[in-house]
């Protein structure tokens, strides 16, 4: 299935990307699985998505946990802890 990725703030700069459309391998069906898939790309992705990295995740503009199931066409966002206000 295809999903749309979005990266924000320090994470966007670290990866040098605002996002992309990605075709997920058959085994990747959850948000946590997607994060692991991105980490396995190596380089800046390995660092940005390391287990200890503080990465927040949202699916279709709602905060979501690693166990969240993904569906075709989902908008998946990764970003650092927020600092507004």
């Amino acid at each position, binding site marked *: 299935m295809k999903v749309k990725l*979005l990266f*924000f*703030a*320090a994470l966007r700069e670290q990866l040098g990307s605002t996002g992309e459309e990605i075709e997920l391998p058959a085994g990747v069906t959850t948000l946590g699985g997607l994060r692991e898939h991105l980490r396995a790309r190596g380089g800046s992705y390995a660092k940005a998505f390391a287990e200890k990295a*503080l990465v927040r995740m*949202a699916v279709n*503009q*709602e*905060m979501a946990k690693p166990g969240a199931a993904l569906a075709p066409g989902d908008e998946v*966002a990764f*970003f*650092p*802890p*927020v*600092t*507004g*206000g």
Partner: protein
Amino acid sequence: MKVSVQREDFDAGAEIRALSHDPKVGALASFVGVVREVPMTLEHYAGMTEREIAKIVEEAKSRWQVMDCTVIHRFGKLEPTDQIVLVAVSSAHRADAFAACEFIMDYLKTRAPFWKKESTSEGVRWVEARASDDAAAERWQPQIAHPKKLG
């Protein structure tokens, strides 16, 4: 309820006055956040930001007697003394207005997807999330016993 995420400045006085037309309003509480000392750029996640703020306002309405509410948050390049955020709440009585206003502000800081990047003489840096902001938001949680973590 009015939620606006915008680049432009706002007139806090006019926004607060706009909440006072209902004759049942007896209290207007407001907070204005201002850029302190360091120029910054605010980035946000368009779409999700508005949704998160609306959810926070709904939560406040379920906890306190809130008649109306306005939240404005700016993004883009901001200079010291610039206004960043306005939260204004109308209610019949001050206790509800004060509490709802503070609650919305505390939750906004830890839930709405904004990120600040400061520009100092030494260069630019992303502001890191602060534990004290999490603590400020957590004190609004119901006081329930937290289960002990295993291991």
